[in-house]
């Protein structure tokens, strides 16, 4: 004691320092940081997936943005403005005036550049028309002549070293030689932009002295055989249509032009003609009157132009102020004096009573502007267009999405003279009579998408009515991509439903059997084998499904259909036969031998369906399944009997059970096992027969009522169809559902099972009344997780589903799923394009769908686990 008190130095043993060594502390601290940062990083990365997808998708819905707006007050022009055009980099705008003068303006600065005057020989232009997509234009004169030509801007790339000397600087990027604009592209390249106009010799169309008041000019046909058509209206309201077809002789290279001309029939009624439109093939002519009436002529046969219909396209008391085509010439935009802007399609409608079976229908009603519409400028790339009203306000709109993309300008007194939408839809120019020139640089990356166009029905040109359509590309330039996700979501759901219809019964039944009726040594083999199948690459399943399974199913379709009936039937029959065994043998062969017998029954069932298939096909499908399912052969009645058989059987067995209840049951119990089994089997057979009779009667009644099982779920057979997809995808999903359901049932505490068995319940009663009710939430979670996998499955649907985006439930037709669509189209999609973003949206939709499914499943599963522990 004293020793210790006297000093520490005398301690007998070595005392470890009480402090943790520095290295350990630092290691601990470092590990702390690394683990925390790393863990949080992964969690963030995972959350980042969703955020990233959303961020890519959002621009689809944000509409347009105004980058800059400029306003220049220039000298008052000589003569009325006919048109205004810009080049595709928005550096040069050119206005064409009735006097033949032109005015070129450098848009970023408002500098007026020198521009050629069109030599008209002293005449004044009375009518002007330019095609939407090309530089072709036509002008009409007071003396009844028409001249054609090309007008537009020309751009060439030149090297910096080739720049001409003495250029005047316009701004940081642009220089000019007084006429052309040199726009810097990068360090080495400049783009030279000039305005050019070519005018051909005049052609007399109207009688001399009759001025051309309206003109519409189109270039159509092919490159080898171009057709030029124009429609003129002279001062006497006589409409004349002329079509010139040029053929180039391949040997002599000589061009021959044939001219055909027709005068449209005189129109009844009155009203000033506001505009006249004509399609490129010159087969339809539309004449719009101020009172809102549009007259449609059929001019396919130029010899006899016919008036087809006269329809009022504006509301009562509203005057029609402008009319114009959008590209593709299927949609007509009509502007009214009340500021209304509506888009009409010519659609097929037999009920309309017109002689060509078509009529004009209002397809899109767009938001109304505040003042009468004065001008329309259609885009050369898509269905966007700009409308200017009487107060000078300009709205940029999109026909298909019925959206107002931009609202430009403020209302003022001066009316707009002409407006133009730049070739890339990224700028709008407007000039007015006072000499004011306005320019807006806009950016509308995705004008065609709204939630409505993606998830709702959309009326596209050429369709008789609004529809859900996915068609993202085509060879045609004027093609409008049709991007509705609905057919794809439908395809995903269809594939999932059919796959689960196949997979869920098999997987759950197998899981129940494995967990309740099989020796654990069998389970120890079967379960890991099934689990391993879950990691089978789906590309392999897809390949087998498409190249092996699909042809087999196609050639043995009757046998395959029969298997679905024959297998359960032969299993049931075998079970009833098994009951006839003496109890001793039944006990001895219980377990593995019985399981082996099941395999035997399975194989004989399959063989039976193969052997009986021709007869089955002859009785139920009129000898040929494929023509039966088309609806071209046989009647639906025999198959209806088959469909109603389960219902009939259930009804009959309910009746039998009720009739045999009580006394009969007790008596059967006393018979002894074999004889009781015999009675039971006979009873089953009788019920089956009774069920068949019920089904037969019902089928007669239904057929008499005109109901046919074909059409709808059963229809025309295609080789790569949903049935095959269902089988293959079912095969992919079975292991997952099986494993999770089996886990859930095995997790039911053993004492529950033991208690039930101890109370005298048979294993079957224990399974149905104790185990399954306890595990039901786990089983449900298994189905949900299986569904999640089926929804996202890609390769099987890509390979075996035929990839047709259609909306029908037909098992024997293909489908296009969200996942397959992404896999097929994303590699070809241009980065940042609408299609690309739509595919990201499809991925987001898939992500959300599976995330919701899995979250529900996970929550249910956790609850089940907690409950199982409590039990």
């Amino acid at each position, binding site marked *: 004691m004293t020793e210790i008190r006297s000093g520490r130095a005398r301690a007998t043993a070595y005392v470890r320092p009480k402090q943790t060594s520095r290295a350990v502390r630092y290691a601990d601290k470092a590990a702390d940081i690394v683990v925390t940062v790393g863990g949080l990083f992964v969690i963030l990365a995972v959350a980042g997936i969703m955020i990233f997808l959303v961020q890519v998708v959002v621009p689809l819905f944000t509409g347009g943005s105004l980058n800059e707006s400029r306003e220049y007050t220039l000298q008052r022009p000589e003569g009325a403005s006919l048109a205004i055009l810009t080049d595709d980099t928005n550096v040069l705008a050119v206005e064409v005036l009735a006097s033949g003068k032109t005015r070129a303006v450098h848009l970023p600065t408002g500098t007026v550049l020198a521009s050629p005057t069109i030599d008209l020989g002293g005449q004044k232009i009375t009518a002007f028309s330019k095609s939407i997509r090309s530089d072709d234009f036509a002008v009409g004169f007071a003396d009844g002549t028409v001249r054609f030509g090309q007008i537009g801007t020309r751009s060439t790339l030149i090297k910096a070293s080739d720049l001409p000397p003495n250029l005047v600087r316009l701004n940081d990027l642009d220089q000019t030689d007084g006429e052309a604009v040199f726009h810097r592209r990068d360090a080495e390249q400049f783009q030279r932009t000039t305005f050019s106009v070519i005018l051909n010799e005049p052609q007399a169309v109207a009688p001399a002295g009759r001025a051309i008041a309206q003109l519409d000019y189109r270039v159509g046909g092919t490159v080898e055989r171009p057709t030029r058509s124009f429609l003129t209206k002279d001062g006497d309201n006589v409409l004349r249509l002329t079509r010139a077809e040029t053929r180039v002789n391949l040997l002599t290279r000589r061009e021959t032009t044939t001219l055909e001309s027709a005068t449209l029939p005189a129109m009844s009624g009155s009203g000033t003609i506001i505009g006249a439109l004509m399609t490129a093939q010159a087969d339809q002519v539309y004449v719009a009157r101020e009172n809102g009436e549009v007259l449609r002529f059929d001019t396919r046969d130029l010899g006899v132009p016919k008036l087809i219909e006269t329809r009022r396209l504006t509301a009562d008391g509203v005057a029609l102020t402008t009319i114009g085509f959008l590209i593709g010439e299927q949609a007509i935009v009509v502007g009214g004096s009340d500021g209304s802007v509506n888009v009409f399609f010519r659609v097929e409608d037999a009920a309309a009573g017109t002689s060509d079976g078509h009529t004009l229908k209002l397809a899109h009603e767009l938001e109304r502007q505040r003042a009468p519409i004065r001008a329309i400028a259609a885009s050369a790339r898509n269905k966007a267009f700009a409308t200017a009203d009487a107060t000078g306000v300009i709205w940029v709109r999109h026909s298909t999405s019925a959206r107002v993309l931009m609202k430009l300008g403020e209302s003022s007194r001066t009316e707009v003279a002409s407006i133009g939408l730049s070739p890339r839809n990224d700028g709008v120019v407007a000039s007015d009579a006072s000499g004011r020139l306005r320019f807006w640089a806009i950016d509308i990356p995705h004008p065609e998408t709204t939630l409505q166009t993606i998830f709702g029905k959309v009326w596209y040109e050429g369709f008789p009515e609004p529809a859900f359509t996915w068609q993202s590309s085509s060879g045609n330039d004027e093609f409008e991509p049709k991007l509705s996700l609905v057919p794809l979501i439908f395809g995903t759901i269809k594939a999932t439903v059919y796959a689960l219809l196949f997979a869920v019964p098999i997987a759950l039944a197998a899981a129940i059997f494995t967990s309740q009726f099989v020796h654990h040594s069998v389970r120890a083999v079967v379960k890991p084998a099934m689990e391993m199948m879950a990691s089978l690459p789906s590309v392999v399943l897809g390949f087998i499904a498409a190249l092996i399974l699909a042809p087999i199913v196609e*050639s043995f379709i009757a046998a395959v259909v029969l298997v679905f009936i024959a297998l359960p039937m032969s*299993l049931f029959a075998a079970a009833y036969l098994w009951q006839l065994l003496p109890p001793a043998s039944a006990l001895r062969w219980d377990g593995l031998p019985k399981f082996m017998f099941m395999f035997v029954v399975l194989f004989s069932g399959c063989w039976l369906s193969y052997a009986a298939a021709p007869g089955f096909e002859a009785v139920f499908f009129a000898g040929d399944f494929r023509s039966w399912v088309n609806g071209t052969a046989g009647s639906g009645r025999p198959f209806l009997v088959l469909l109603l058989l389960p219902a009939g059987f259930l009804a009959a067995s309910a009746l039998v059970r009720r009739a045999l209840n009580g006394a009969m049951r007790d008596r059967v119990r006393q018979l002894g096992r074999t004889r009781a089994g015999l009675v039971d089997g006979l009873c089953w057979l009788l019920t089956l027969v009774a069920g068949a009779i019920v089904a037969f009667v019902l089928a007669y009644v239904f057929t008499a009522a005109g109901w046919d099982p074909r059409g709808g779920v059963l229809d025309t057979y295609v080789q790569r169809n949903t049935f095959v997809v269902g089988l293959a995808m079912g095969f992919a999903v079975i292991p997952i559902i099986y494993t999770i359901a089996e886990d859930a049932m095995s997790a039911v505490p053993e004492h529950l099972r033991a208690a039930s068995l101890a109370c005298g319940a048979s294993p079957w009663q224990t399974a*149905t009344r104790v185990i399954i009710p306890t595990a039901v939430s786990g089983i449900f979670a298994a189905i949900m997780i299986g569904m999640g996998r089926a929804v996202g499955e890609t390769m099987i649907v890509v390979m075996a589903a035929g990839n047709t985006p259609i909306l029908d439930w037909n098992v024997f037709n293909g489908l296009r799923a969200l996942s397959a669509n992404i896999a097929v189209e994303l590699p070809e999609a241009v980065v940042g394009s609408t299609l690309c973003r739509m595919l990201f949206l499809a991925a987001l939709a898939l992500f959300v769908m599976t995330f919701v499914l899995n979250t529900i499943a996970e929550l249910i599963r956790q609850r089940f686990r907690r409950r199982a522990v409590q039990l």
Partner: protein
Amino acid sequence: MTTETLTAPSNAVAARRRRTFGSDVSASGEPAQWALGGALALGIVLIAGFLLLVFWNGVATFFPKPIVALTLTDGSTIAGPIRRSEEFRVPPNELASLPPPVQALIRDDGGMAERQLIQIGNFDLYNEDFRWVPSYLVAGASRPRDLVLMERLEWGPFVGRVKQVVEDGRPLADGDPLPTGLDAVHRKARDRWQQIRRIERGDIGVVNHDIDGIRLEVRRLELRHGPDHERVVAARRAAEPELARLRTQYDTLAAEARRLRQEDARTTITLADTGGREKSMRLSEITRFVPANDLSLLGALGVYFDRWGEFLADEPREANTEGGVMPAIFGTFVMTLMMVLVVAPFGVLTALYLREYARQGRIVAIVRISVNNLAGVPSIVYGVFGVGFFAYLVGGSIDQWFYAERLPSPTFGTGGILWASLTLALLTVPVVIVATEEALSAVPRSVREGSLACGASKWQTIKYIVLPRALPGIMTGLILAMARGAGEVAPLMLVGVVKLAPELPMDGFFPFIHLERSFMHLGFHIYDVGFQSRNSEAGKPMVFVTTMLLIGLIFVMNLAAIVIRNRLKRKFVGAQF
């Protein structure tokens, strides 16, 4: 019911007693049991059938099949191995054109007849590889010993006879069925061909790579300093002699290749099909002679293993339908390896964080559910994310900063093996997290507490006590992740897999591992050959073998996971308190 029991208790007792002795058949639910058992049996049969189908086709593909020469009723002959046969419904118009007795026979069979798919080969002569021959058109069949199937570099196999082989203008003596000494001559021709290829691909490739490197160096300087900067001019001047040297080198090599080609063209072979149509070509264009009707079992086995060797070690030919899959195996392997290198640390770190460091509460529960769910998010979604985020966003930025001289052709800004493995790492990280967490939670609390009570720090406890015991679980998770990653195709289609990669992601040029390169993959190979090739019938055997390889790979990984788990588990048995 209560009244019944009250008024007639003796009855109820009697009924109960009777029930004990009676046999209630419905209680055992025999039919339902059979239905359940049938479902399990069906599942097993489906799986076994599937594996058997793949395995059988995969194993049998390379075994040489006898060449059958068929004489048709119209007098013509065709020859080739029989691929398969099937029953088919004779189309009505064809049926009508047949002689009446044949018609009657077919009618007796219910309008069905048998037909065989013959691999007639000789695509350059016939414009088709395969022909269905209905049995009623066959007049006679034989297996002539001198018919040979020749695998060629182009146009698919040739089925026919060897007319003549000319070596350097000297014809070889006829033999039976192949000319004598053909083996040696053929080997020489093939060696020469290999040499040409080595020069054209290897040596000239190196020269081209060097020239390109110089060009890029100059371009980088240009971008940094402007085109007329003195350093650029200096670099250009400095590169001149080097370029000239490389060009001469190129010319020498090209001349050598030309000489070899001319030499090669002097050794030719003339083939004739069964109809006598002849076709001459260079001997080196034929890769293998298979006199299938004249082979002993040993010879057949030789061909069989030779074909396996080619399959595993060679590059693909003929739009991937022939040759080997070595680049695909290599690509799959490298990608999976890189994926594991990424996924292992991050997966384990996250699981450690969730289980050992984070405060267990509502938020961690939510995170855990989300991580679990991510395992169920479709792989294609990861693919979309991978291409959008990794390739376009990250890769695009890398290109702008470091590879500006190569723009506009992207370096990292497009799909590549790095992005593919990162995408798959993201896809499989939930698997690893879940497995690791489970393994960590299985380490008994008592062990941890014991360690902490002995004075170990948290990290020491984790490092020396928890992690070693959790290792089996972690390994299992990793291997399962590998198995999943190796079999995934859909996301790879978006982030860098190609049908034919010109270069492997590893080669002899600095920096040896090219993470930006696109690569080939076994799974995509299956999709490509099965679906995108000119003739899916020609590719089918190849697809089956590839499928077998892929499934085998994945099953081996799964098995390894199970074995490792069991072995390590045993090691720690009894190590609990």
